[in-house]
């Protein structure tokens, strides 16, 4: 696949060429961990997929329009397949000097800004799909919020796959200037496609000194056979705060690495994720809470639930490098099994290479608490409703951390739909144990 013909920037062509070489040299990976866990791509017919172009449109893809609802937003960049099909930026944002566009266009119009940050924390050497994304991305999204600018309305980026046979290579680059404040939401959405599709994505956010960024990723590739192999990395500079909420609500096979780096003294982050797998879905998440400087703080909470025959694995690493004294961080991960056949694990781990830090973690993998169910049914609430309310309540802590009523409502609605779809097997599972 050739790089986009519209990209004329030589430095970027060089980077793509390097990535292409890495892509060609790298084998298709299989991820294994001790225990039962393997993520394999043997069912993905990679060679049968193609990048597909679409014409720009004023109308949003239906699946995105549904997800966005009526919430007001400051800007929106939409990529369908390989093409940027829709860009909106409010005049208010433009007045503040905020740039929101496709990354392709930004590379031409703002080459210095792009070049300065592009893949500063990502590398094409991180495996075949990281190399593929770096070599083949088209469209993409670029967000630049200048120093001291404070935005009320969110900036939104979206990747949509609504046809089978598509390979989508994505790259979002977001740079938030010193003391700026903003909210960024990225949607990864799919329709019930026939056949297979691939999303190989890269996301990078650089939160400048003293900035405050609210970041959400909403993934719902739908019931189709979508494979999502992506890396997302966030760097938090001195005295900046990033609150990041990734949500995974659908996709045949998801393999993502999500890293938060508190890079300078005073960096603070809160990382809160949720996933709910069903059917034949396979989800493999690895997150890193990396402290590269002293006096940095972190707080990570991930919660998941599994129904059907689904598989979900979450591994969360806390990594505190030498000389990052006085770092304080906590990671907890919970997973709830809701069917007999679902299998999962949730593993917190720790690498601490210095002293004078506090780093702790905790994790649970379990089923619904029979004592809680008895308590609710003893009040007259039917068992199936008790189960629904308990699962919704379990996720509520995470959902509220979105701090975004529209998105919260969307996530709650999807959780309720998934529970309803799985109601019979959940009742059977819970019933059998009683």
């Amino acid at each position: 696949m050739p790089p986009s013909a519209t990209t004329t920037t030589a430095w970027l062509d060089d980077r793509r060429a390097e990535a292409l070489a890495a892509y060609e040299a790298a084998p298709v990976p299989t991820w294994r961990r001790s225990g039962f866990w393997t993520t394999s791509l043997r069912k993905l017919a990679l060679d049968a997929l193609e990048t597909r172009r679409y014409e720009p449109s004023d109308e949003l893809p239906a699946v995105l329009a549904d997800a966005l609802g009526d919430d007001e937003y400051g800007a929106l960049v939409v990529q369908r397949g390989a093409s940027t099909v829709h860009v909106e930026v409010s005049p208010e944002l433009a007045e503040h000097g905020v740039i929101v566009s496709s990354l392709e266009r930004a590379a031409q119009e703002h080459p210095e800004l792009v070049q300065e940050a592009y893949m500063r924390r990502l590398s094409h050497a991180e495996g075949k799909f990281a190399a593929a994304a770096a070599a083949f991305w088209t469209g993409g999204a670029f967000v630049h919020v200048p120093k001291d600018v404070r935005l009320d309305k969110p900036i939104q980026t979206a990747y949509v796959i609504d046809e089978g046979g598509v390979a989508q290579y994505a790259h979002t680059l977001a740079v938030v200037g010193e003391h700026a404040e903003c909210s960024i939401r990225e949607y990864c959405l799919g329709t019930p496609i026939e056949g297979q599709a691939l999303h190989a994505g890269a996301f990078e956010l650089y939160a400048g000194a003293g900035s405050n960024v609210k970041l959400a990723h909403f993934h719902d590739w739908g019931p189709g056979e979508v494979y999502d192999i992506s890396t997302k990395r966030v760097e938090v500079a001195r005295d900046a705060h990033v609150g990041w909420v990734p949500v995974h609500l659908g996709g045949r096979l998801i393999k993502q690495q999500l890293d938060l780096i508190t890079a300078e003294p005073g960096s603070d982050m809160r990382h809160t994720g949720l996933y709910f797998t069903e059917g034949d879905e396979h989800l493999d998440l690895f997150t890193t809470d990396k402290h590269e400087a002293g006096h940095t703080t972190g707080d990570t909470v991930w919660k998941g639930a599994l129904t059907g025959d689904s598989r979900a694995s979450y591994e969360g690493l806390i990594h505190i490098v030498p000389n990052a004294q006085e770092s304080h961080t906590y990671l907890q991960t919970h997973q709830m099994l809701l069917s007999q056949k679902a299998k999962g694990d949730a593993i917190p781990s720790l690498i601490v290479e210095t002293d004078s830090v506090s780093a702790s973690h905790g994790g649970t993998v379990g089923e619904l608490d029979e004592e809680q169910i008895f308590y609710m049914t003893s009040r007259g609430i039917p068992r199936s409703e008790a189960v629904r309310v308990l699962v919704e309540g379990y996720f509520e802590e995470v959902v509220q951390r979105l701090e975004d009523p529209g998105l919260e409502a969307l996530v709650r609605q999807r959780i309720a739909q998934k529970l309803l779809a799985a109601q019979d097997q959940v009742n059977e599972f819970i019933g059998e144990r009683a």
Partner: protein
Amino acid sequence: MSLEIQNLHVRIEEREILHGVDLKVEKGQTHALMGPNGSGKSTLANTIMGNPNYEVTEGRIVFNGEDMTEADPEDRAQAGLFLAFQYPATVPGVSVANFLRLAVNSRREQPMKVKDFGKMLREQVDLLKIDPSFVSRYLNEGFSGGEKKRAEILQLAMLKPQIAVLDETDSGLDIDALRVVSDGVNALSGPDMGSLIITHYTRILNYVRPDFVHIMLDGRVVREGGAELADELEDKGYDFVRAEVEAAAHAS
């Protein structure tokens, strides 16, 4: 209107805890079931409410003439039984108000209007002198012992059962909390509600005067009487009752 326990034998896993308990609580009556730790009081309370961990091997639980021995907990609750738990479960992510709305609506054909429910909740909150912000907290999450018991009494007040079983609702309470709980029980007691107050101590009986007192030892009801039995127990203690029961057993 009555709850009748007939020759109830109950076991947990392989161990029999109750060895044939008989007890009858009618609407309008206040009963106290007293006994030392491990005598089977909580087992009885949980079995009355249908806790699936407890297995009835013999005997029956009859409520308003209907055999409820095998009924699901939600059916017992909807029929008018209530258990105030000794150790209520935490329900994260679900506020006290939302939980109550679900519970109240579970026994109605049509869900209550939000406005009407709000009014009813405010009334009960006022009556029980509970801080109104309490109802927006997640049920029992981070609650103190006293707050948990108040939440149980608030549920009792909202659900208006015919027969309420209070499992050691008085334990671990300071005097103020104990007063809130006993005021609540007194306010709710009357011709429309019968109660079975399960307690280790006689302390709550200074605030809620029982019509009948039953003493339980080793999974059996060994003495029954009126309020004076509680006074006797206060003076003499459980060891005296035990000695008496053992002496009677030797004599026969």
